């Protein structure tokens, strides 16, 4: 019997697989969140909170740091003092660790960093997987061990920990981000005994003995000079020479315990292969499938999978490679522009140099960047290339490169999926529980059968109303292909509306089963299908079933989450386990049994009633009369939208050729308006009879879907019949002005904030207001026409003063609209306001946070332009450097302006003395002044158009710099309080005219709710699973301490007037300003519709006192600080316990929750006293 063969089997993802081992073999875990590695740290934090012990019987110390650089520093410190320490990271995070990695390796310190390998940001960031991050760290002196599957991520984690202790070379253990980190597979878990058997006791003790300790003092981290440094670098060589053997030793120990045998280089294929693929990572499975398919046809082909990439053990590589290999293709999952070849390719070429005999031909190819699919057919295309007389020496595979023409042609039908494996694809809406159900289903199959399983999930780029696609495979054979399901035996569409815009049946195999969640009965369902779906059903002979999952869930009390009935239907149709209802109930009991009898009850009710609503549709023999799918973008949309954006919107982005994508990552703005997502089932409806024209509905709308406009009565000519209009109330605009509140029905997310804020009650029926939610279906067409007409109305000619109020600001068209932010988002109203107040001159430097994702995750952007084409200009550098990036804008704008002024003075004669004087002396402090300057700049350009003198041509090019720019740095609390604080502080101190907007959600929202230094005491967050024990940082106080910075703390839901004032004052302040804006967030765990009320409570309980600190007031002899909210009037708990982030702790650890809450109440009171100066 193979020892360990009876080990526990579980279905889990690569992150958890690696984290389980890392946790068991660590004493200190330092963390900083970054996708896709965050779940590893989150698991460790959660386990520590539960008191789970490591291999040595203690609970690891889990510590979150302020950045990856900080995490690496803390790891270095913990390692050098003798603790077994680990961390998890990816992408830019790994880059930030590099300086310390050199140190850790240089000091021969055993350590393992587990990396979910991810693309590095270049012209765009991408959260998805490739090797560009690990390859950027390959020179640090760390060993690099690569896992390609979930089982390997588990096994190699242990191998890395064992080998590092034995070799003293630190290890990067990496696997492909998302593809492996987030793929669920059934694996055999290593037991504690297995882990103990793999570690060497002497090596553990040796590590401890080397610890820095005053009891036996040593000196480390010295400075060396030319006389000794070089020798010191060479002194480490024997350790690197020995390192591969330590890995082999650990592989042997693993094989002995588990029967799973790995080598430094694993070779598959014909022993006398002539053509060989070389690669590492999750692509190996697809390559192996292709090699086996070719071998079955008698071709002499092979695959060499690299496990240990650094130190590169040439001798083992050469011995693993068949001597017959004459044509080799090395595939790199990274891109190094300008190189001779990518890293693995170069290593292979160099290694082959040392081989005797004929020199093989070596091709270098790139594949799979940013989780681009790598399929067996693509591997087959590479094998085919290798067989050519004159193959491409450098190539790409998986894209269509019509620019450099490097891409190989791929015949996707060349390599089929294993027919014995069942493939299933599910299309769901983000909020409907589809992904959760499928994770659950795959676990059920894994537990209840001997089948192998695989699950992988694809999400779109939006945070609200997003489409998820789940790819499930199960079957008797090992599932090696880490690709999306190509030919599905089962396709489920959990949202009927997807059929109108996406080819849901694209992956359906002939004879597959199609399940649709619809309110239509089986005999009506066919008539509701678009033409394309009917054609596919007929052509591929699909069986078609429907279920009213929404009704089942609604009746059971499960709301919009249709996971349970859909899961019941899937099992009933897939017939993979005999008594699936009982199995589902067992799974429900297991998941929720200990937590909530009520949740179990509701789900059981849904299970019991689901099958009654499942029915088969009798498929007619002909397509019949049916409308086709809606085009993704209308014909009047700009070219970019109709081609590139539309392809991405409909899931066909992979088909875009290289030429379609801007080489430098520069895209047009004002594109979100073309992406009509239609995600709301209810939208606000204006009842003009009660409206008091306060414009608050528009002010709070996170998606700029509620608009208000004041316009001359003449504008009404040609209005659609149902267009509503009333007389304008107010003196700011001329008599006869009309007023309309208009909803964009296709862009609204249905969050209801507008209805909540509406102060105007229907006097006859007080449950109603001047805005009420109404079903969108009967309204959509009419309101679409109304909105189109509304957009054509010109904005009211408001003065700057009038526009600088809550009411006035909303009469300006927002230049931030229809973002992909969460429904009810608490951040976007601030950005929208910013765009309304200063959008025409706005330059945004955005940190990599939520706002950069809903602001610029392709295919579209909400940043828009006004009719003359002016509007916010936006860019993102990194997560950590937004303040510095924005300061760079300012320095540059100022520099260009001063240069232009110099040229203008010098060329006054050519320009005209009057124009020159006016341009130089212009007052641009008002909108009118700014527009006048723009007109002058226009005249200047016209005057210079025909001039050929160098100075004058330069002046023409720099002319726009004579118009004021409003520079805004935008980021969240994770950036401002943690990773970007150093830069932020420097910019505050620099005194330049830079405005900083901190959208403070008190948590890392974008990466899924990790604690930041803004997280309040007593709240639960990831990395603070036991409740944040310490007080939140008072960023406003820190900024005020400079005395020279304009500081405001605002909460638009609590005081919208103060919010507008703060923006106006910050922008007009001649130095640096910072606005810290309370942003309610989905991560707080409450009904976002209550966001404004919750903001009021945050202020009323003293958690978020409103203030403005204006150094101009101090200069005028007044107190600089103005408190804009009253003394706390409600206890903190009346605010806090309306949010799950606080309530969770009250449920899991009531006494600790009460203790922390009492301390937090004390924080609030102390801060208030401090603000009041007492």
């Amino acid at each position, binding site marked *: 019997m193979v020892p360990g063969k009876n080990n526990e089997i579980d279905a889990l993802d690569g992150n958890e697989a690696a984290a389980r081992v890392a946790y068991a073999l660590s004493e200190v875990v330092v963390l900083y969140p970054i*996708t896709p590695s965050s779940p590893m740290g989150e698991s460790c934090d959660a386990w520590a909170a539960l008191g789970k012990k490591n291999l040595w019987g203690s609970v690891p110390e889990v510590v979150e740091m302020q950045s990856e650089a900080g995490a690496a520093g803390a790891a270095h410190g913990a390692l050098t003092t003798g603790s077994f320490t680990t961390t998890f990271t990816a992408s830019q995070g790994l880059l930030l660790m590099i300086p310390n990695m050199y140190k850790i390796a240089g000091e021969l310190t055993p350590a393992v960093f587990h990396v979910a390998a991810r693309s590095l940001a270049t012209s765009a960031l991408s959260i998805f997987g490739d090797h560009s991050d690990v390859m950027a760290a390959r020179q640090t002196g760390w060993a690099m061990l690569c896992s390609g599957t979930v089982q390997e991520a588990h096994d190699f984690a242990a191998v890395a920990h064992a080998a590092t202790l034995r070799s003293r070379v630190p290890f990067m253990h990496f696997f492909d981000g998302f593809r492996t980190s987030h793929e669920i597979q059934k694996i055999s878990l290593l037991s504690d005994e297995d882990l103990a058997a793999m570690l060497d006791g002497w090596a553990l003790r040796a590590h401890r003995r080397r610890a820095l300790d005053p009891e036996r003092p040593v000196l480390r981290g010295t400075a060396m000079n030319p006389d000794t440094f070089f020798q010191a670098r060479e002194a480490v060589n024997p350790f690197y020479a020995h390192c591969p053997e330590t890995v082999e030793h650990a592989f042997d120990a693993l094989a002995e315990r588990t029967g799973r045998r790995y080598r430094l280089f694993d070779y598959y294929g014909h022993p006398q292969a002539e053509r060989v693929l070389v690669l590492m990572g999750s692509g190996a499975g697809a390559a192996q499938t292709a090699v086996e398919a070719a071998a079955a046809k008698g071709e002499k082909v092979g695959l060499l999978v690299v496990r240990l990439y650094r130190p590169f053990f040439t001798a083992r590589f050469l011995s693993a490679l068949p001597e017959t290999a004459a044509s080799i293709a090395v595939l790199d999952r990274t891109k190094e522009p300008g190189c001779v070849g990518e890293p693995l390719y170069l290593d292979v070429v160099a290694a082959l140099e040392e081989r005797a005999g004929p020199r093989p031909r070596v091709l270098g190819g790139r594949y799979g960047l940013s989780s681009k699919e790598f399929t067996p057919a693509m591997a087959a295309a590479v094998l085919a290339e290798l067989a050519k007389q004159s193959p491409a020496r450098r190539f790409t595979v998986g894209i269509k490169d019509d620019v450099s023409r490097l891409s190989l042609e791929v015949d996707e039908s060349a390599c089929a999926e294993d027919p014995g494996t069942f493939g299933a694809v599910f299309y769901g809406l983000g909020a409907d529980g589809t*992904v959760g159900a499928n994770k659950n289903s795959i676990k059920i199959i894994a537990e209840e059968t001997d089948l192998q399983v695989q699950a992988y999930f694809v999400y779109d780029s939006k*945070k609200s109303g997003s489409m998820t696609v789940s790819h499930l495979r199960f079957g008797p054979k090992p599932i090696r292909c880490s690709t999306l399901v190509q030919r599905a035996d089962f396709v489920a569409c959990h949202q009927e509306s997807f059929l109108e815009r996406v080819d849901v049946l694209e992956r359906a195999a002939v004879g597959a089963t199609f399940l649709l969640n619809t309110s239509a009965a089986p005999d009506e369902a066919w008539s509701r299908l678009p033409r394309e779906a009917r054609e596919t059903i007929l052509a591929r002979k699909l069986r078609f079933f429907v279920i009213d999952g929404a009704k089942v869930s609604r009746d059971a009390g499960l709301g919009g989450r249709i996971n349970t009935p859909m899961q019941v239907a899937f099992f009933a149709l897939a017939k993979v386990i005999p008594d699936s209802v009982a199995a589902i109930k067992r799974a429900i009991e297991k998941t929720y049994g200990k937590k909530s009898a009520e949740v179990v009850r509701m789900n059981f009710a849904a299970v019991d009633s689901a099958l009654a609503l499942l029915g088969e549709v009798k498929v007619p023999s002909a397509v019949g009369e049916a409308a086709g799918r809606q085009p993704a973008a209308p014909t009047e949309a700009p070219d970019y939208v109709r081609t590139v954006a539309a392809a991405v919107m409909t899931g066909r982005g992979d088909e875009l050729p290289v030429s379609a994508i801007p080489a430098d990552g520069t895209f047009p703005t004002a594109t979100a308006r073309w992406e009509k997502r239609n995600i709301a089932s209810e939208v606000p409806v204006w009842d003009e009879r009660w409206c008091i024209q306060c414009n608050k509905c528009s002010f709070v709308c996170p998606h700029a879907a509620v608009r208000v406009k004041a316009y001359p009565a003449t504008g009404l000519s040609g209005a659609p019949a149902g267009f509503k209009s009333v007389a304008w109330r107010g003196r700011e605009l001329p008599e006869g002005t009309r007023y309309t509140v208009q909803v964009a029905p296709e862009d609204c997310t249905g969050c209801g904030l507008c209805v909540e804020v509406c102060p105007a009650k229907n006097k006859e029926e007080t449950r109603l207001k001047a805005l009420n939610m109404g079903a969108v279906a009967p309204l959509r067409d009419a309101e679409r026409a109304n909105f189109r007409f509304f957009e054509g109305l010109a904005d009211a000619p408001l003065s700057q003063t009038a526009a600088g109020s809550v009411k006035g600001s909303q009469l300006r068209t927002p230049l931030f609209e229809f973002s992909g932010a969460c429904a009810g988002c608490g951040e976007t109203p601030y950005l929208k306001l910013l765009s309304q107040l200063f959008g025409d001159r706005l330059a945004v430097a955005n940190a990599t946070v939520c706002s950069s994702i809903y602001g610029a995750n392709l295919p579209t952007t909400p940043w828009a332009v006004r009719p003359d084409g002016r509007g916010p200009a936006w860019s993102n550098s990194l997560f950590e450097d937004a303040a510095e990036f924005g300061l760079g804008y300012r320095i540059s704008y100022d520099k260009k302006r001063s240069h232009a002024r110099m040229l203008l003075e010098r060329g006054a004669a050519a320009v005209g003395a009057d124009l020159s004087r006016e341009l130089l002396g212009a007052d641009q402090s008002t909108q009118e002044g700014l527009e006048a300057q723009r007109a002058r700049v226009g005249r200047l350009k016209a005057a210079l158009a025909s001039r050929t003198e160098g100075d004058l041509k330069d002046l023409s090019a720099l002319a726009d710099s004579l118009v004021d720019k409003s520079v805004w740095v935008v980021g969240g609390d994770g950036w401002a309080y943690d990773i970007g604080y150093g830069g932020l502080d420097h910019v505050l101190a620099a005194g330049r005219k830079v405005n900083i907007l901190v959208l403070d959600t008190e948590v890392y*929202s974008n*990466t899924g709710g990790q604690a930041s230094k803004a997280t309040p005491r007593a709240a639960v967050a990831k990395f603070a699973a036991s409740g944040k024990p310490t007080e939140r940082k008072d960023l406003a106080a820190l900024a005020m301490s400079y005395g020279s910075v304009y500081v405001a703390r605002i909460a638009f839901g609590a005081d919208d007037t103060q919010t507008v004032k703060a923006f106006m004052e910050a922008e007009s302040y001649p130095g640096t300003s910072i606005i810290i804006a309370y942003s309610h967030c989905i991560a707080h765990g409450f009904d976002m519709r209550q966001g404004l009320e919750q903001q009021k409570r945050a202020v009323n309980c003293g958690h978020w006192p409103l203030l403005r600190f204006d150094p101009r007031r101090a200069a005028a002899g007044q107190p600089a600080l103005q408190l804009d909210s009253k003394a706390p009037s409600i206890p903190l708990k009346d605010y806090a316990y309306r949010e799950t982030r606080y309530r969770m702790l009250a*449920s899991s650890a009531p006494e600790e929750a009460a203790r922390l809450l009492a301390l937090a109440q004390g924080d609030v009171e102390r801060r208030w006293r401090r603000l009041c100066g007492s």
Partner: protein
Amino acid sequence: MDLSTRYLGFILDSPIVPSACPITENIDTLKRLEDAGAGAVVLPSLFEEQVRAEERTLHHYMESGSESYAESLSYLPAPADFQFGPDQHLERVRKAKESLGIPVVASLNGSTPGGWLEYAEKLAQAGADALELNVYRVAADPEVPGSRVEAEAVAVVADVRARIKIPLAVKIGPYYSSMAEMALRFVRAGADGLVLFNRFYQPDLDLETLEVGPKLLLSGPQAQRLPLTWTALLHGRVQGASLAATGGVQNAEDAIKMLMVGADAVMVAAELLRRGPEHVKTMLDGMRAWMSEREYTSAAQMKGSMSQKACGNPSAFERANYVKTLTGYHI
């Protein structure tokens, strides 16, 4: 002075019993109540509807927004040992029982037949000495006859009685057509005592916001007349079941009145919220002073001495507001 009284089969050192309210929520104040001389305590009610709603709500927000966007597949840490549901409440009962020497009465307001039984059993298992069923219902559906409402309430008592062994009190509302008959039916169904009366939640209007909502009104002295009347009427007529009077009791005199009309226990809440747990002692001191001044030797002596059966003017408890006028012409 002997203030002891027999309630639900327990001999209490004093008849003052803090009823279910925030002050009986935590151990510290419970101990202070005991130290101040409370005869027993009633812990805050476990509201089945609230427990279930809370479970649903927490579950909803734990999952909302999850599995939607690749970077933020969840927003809160995974709560492996999360306690939804009544566990915390049961823990409070356990702790109260551990910490106190006086009887601990748990209180329950169910909303489903299964819920009444399940939670009653759990509360008993958690160590409650007795259980008070908060038979609470606003019968607002014009299609539902009173007979059904009554039958359902009595059935709950009978079912719970059959399931648990500890003494059972039933806290009832006063709005039954035949209050006395209902009282007897509850006792026949197995109630060891009746608590008179439950205060129904009555919302208020906010004229600024035009919203209807809760607005806590602590009971004042006017609230004591209803329990006073019905305790007087029921004393000695409900097969020996205990009676507890609750509502509007503020001071020693109020408590003495309740004892005199026949209450075995006098429940206090609002006044303790206003004055703190030590007010129990003030009340008891006041009772002792009053009694010794008038040479009473025990509470038992005066208990029921002014019930309808025992008082000199029995009709006073049965008539409405013109009784006083008539009494002027009494012959």
